[in-house]
């Protein structure tokens, strides 16, 4: 349950924070979620990854859908990525990875705070 909550929270906050911060703003929220929600580091990592993977993946997917798949193939060509589907996956993985390591850091940070207490 915690895992699901933290995934949803990662996605929601990740989106909200980036309305005000640069593209990497979600790393801050994922880091904080890692601190606040107590989970094993591996689960924090997974939640961080999944949250942003889903957020960026679905966001890109729906943009592409509305765009009738016009721009994605062009960008895929420019970047030398095989297809627009692959471009969506890569987009999702990049967001997911940054978020995952931020969440992992948060999780390790939480254990530090606890030990000090």
């Amino acid at each position: 349950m915690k895992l699901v909550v933290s995934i949803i929270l990662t996605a929601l906050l990740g989106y909200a924070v980036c309305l005000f911060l640069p593209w990497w703003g979600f790393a801050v929220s994922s880091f904080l979620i890692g601190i606040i929600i107590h989970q094993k580091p591996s689960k924090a990592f997974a939640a961080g990854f999944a949250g942003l993977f889903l957020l960026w993946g679905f966001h890109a997917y729906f943009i592409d859908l509305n765009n009738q798949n016009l721009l994605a193939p062009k960008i895929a060509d420019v970047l030398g990525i095989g297809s627009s589907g692959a471009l969506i996956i890569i987009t999702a993985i990049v967001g997911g990875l940054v978020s995952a390591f931020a969440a992992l850091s948060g999780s390790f940070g939480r254990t530090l705070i606890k030990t000090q207490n």
Partner: protein
Amino acid sequence: MRVVYFILSLALTVGLIIVLNVPLPAGKTKTPRMGYFLSPQKGFWQNAEAADKEFNAAIHASGLKGKVSVYFDERLVPHIYAENDHDANFVQGYLHARFRLWQMDFQTYAAAGRLSEIMGAQGSGSDFLKIDKFFRRLGMVYAAENSLKQMESDPESKAAADAYTAGVNAYISALDEKDYPLEYKMLDYKPEQWTNLKTALLLKYMSYDLAAYEQDFEMTNARSIFTAKQFEKLYPYGQDSLDPIVPKGTVFAKAGLVVKKPLNADSVYFTFNADTTKSQAYNPKPDPANGSNNWAVSGIKTASGKPILCNDPHLGLNLPSLWYEVQISTPGNNVYGVGLPGAPNVIIGFNDNVAFGFTNSGRDVRDYYEITFKDSTMQQYLYNGEWQNTTFRDEVIKVKGAVADTEHIAMTVWGPVMYDKNYPNILKDGKAYACRWKAHDPSDELKTFGKLDKAKGYDDYVDAISTFSCPAQNMIFASKSGDIAIRQQGSFPAKWRRQGDFLMPGNDSSYRWQGIIGDSFNITLHNPTYGFVSSANQYPYDTTYPYYIGGSNPPYRGIIINRNLTQMENITPEDMQRLQTNNYNIFAEMAKPVLLKYTDETALTDTERTLFETYKSWNLRNDIDEKGATIFAVWVDSIMAEMYDDELSQSPLPMPQPVQSTMLESILKDSSYVFADNINTPQKETIKDIVTAAFKKATTELNIAEKTGKLAWGKFKDSGIRHLLRIPAFSRLHLPIGGGNHIINATKQFHGPSWRMVVHLNDKTEAYGVYPGGQSGNPGSKYYDTFVDYWASGKYYMLSIISEAEISKQKGLKGKMTFSNS
């Protein structure tokens, strides 16, 4: 241990973000900042425009005087309804920025020699620093500054430019980084504020494109190789086949301004073949094919009894397109047509009363003067026997990721010293040359377009164009009252024969441009009895014109247009569309008898004969499926090489290429044409030897084309419209379109009719147009290349001036924007 994990993990996170937040090297270029670029909230995904997007907005801008409404029709053409000119210009600026910001900004970077600032010194096979240096040294910024002063000294032009700039900036100021056009995100820079100087730079870029062609260094080199007689044969002045804009036989007044050839010209300037003028150097040239067609027929030639005006400017074909289509309505005036993103006004179009268009004049208004400096500091130079002081312009070229470069440019009485020891010319003679270019002089082109947009009749047309200076154009006009007219308008230096074709002595004022050709010598052809006026970049007058014209002027499109217009009666707009897209090759028609005569068929092998038969049965049309058109084109190139390469290769330095009309006219009239002989062989070759050998050589390329399925003209020519950054995915390549050089449909590989327009000045104006692009400059928009296929297939859209009441009720609109100051 936990501390270590924490630190490691945090370092990894921060490291990852940093790597994703900087451009990374990828081959010869750099990637965008990938994290930013891929972010669906910030990066390129934000430029993937929803297909059903409606372009609605309510804009509040303090600069406005009244209210403005803009309706976007189903092709995304804005119809602007403003209460005054100021607001119309403001909104035009806003819309150009909204739909074409990157393009207009990028073009001004190019014009100002600032590409290195955003592209780096080198990249993607281009040497941007070299290009920037060239434009700085040519004096582009100097020219734009001079014109800006002139423009801003005229209250109306200044008001128009100010309002336009404010409109552009109103859009830019409201941008968030997620809203930046795609190319900014790819190249990782930000839009900068627009200025009137940027508008002036854009107009100067048009001058570079249209009024900067010269071959003075090459010609000077040729002068040292050839005798005067040979030179005149290779690079003649005038053409036998010429059908000038102002008909032959027109009697010209005696020159009002008598131009004196300098006394020492024969010994100093016309130094043929005795001169021992002794390449890293960079000397890009605007495409000499930058031409165009325009014509207007009067009521006596049309089915309706009302004039029809047509124009198709031939320019480099790019995406985003050079043109942006618009209707602008202000109280008492409605104008429709295309304008240049970066400048206010409709440039080619029509209003309720008149229609207007342009083709390029091709006159040579850029010359060089050799400068003798006292010493290497370049602080003094010799002029009329005295040492004059130079001033200096230090042009700082910022370079992305490297230290800035400064061009230290000496300014003389002639203009900027373009070439000196730090910036060698293509002859590598170590000498310094100042550039005298008409575009350096103050001028106000906006004024002409502003007035034309509002012209009510012939007198207004004459008034509007009379101040136009550079780039000189053949300005065509037709009105509902039945007038048609054309005039080659510009500020032309009065030259003696061959003045400025070679490099001139800069220490002697007698080589200066002695004056400007008087207005009455820019002949206006107004309602000629035969019922039409036209131009297609041919010479405006024959050689009886009292001043030297010089320049680069292909004759053939003019001949075929005039032949058609002479024959045509009861003309309809559909007839004119067919004429604009006509693929008949008049040059091939004129060449065919003489090529057949001079081909020794017995010398051809079987495969050569097959190709030759295909050529013989060719219908002389450059339609996409015609193989004969390809054979002819490759053969002519081969003849040019066989005929002239031996003479031209006498110098290792660049030489001017003779033009195709010179070759054809020569072999038509002279069966013992002296250049047929290959000077590197002991025997004496004849035209027959050359023409036959050229065919045999051409078959190598033609056989490869045949084997790869590319012998058909459309496949061989392989036309396309390239993105300004030459990104294939953003370009439309391999388009099925015919036409080509010397053909009315002048579509070459990457060059051609950038806007086709036919305006029937009937009681209710009936107009048609199309350009190879789309209203949006965003490669992620479905409006990016909407018109390309339509254009390629020779179709036209209906263009209509619509009232606000009418358009507001239309179905299928793509949005409405309102603008007000509160």
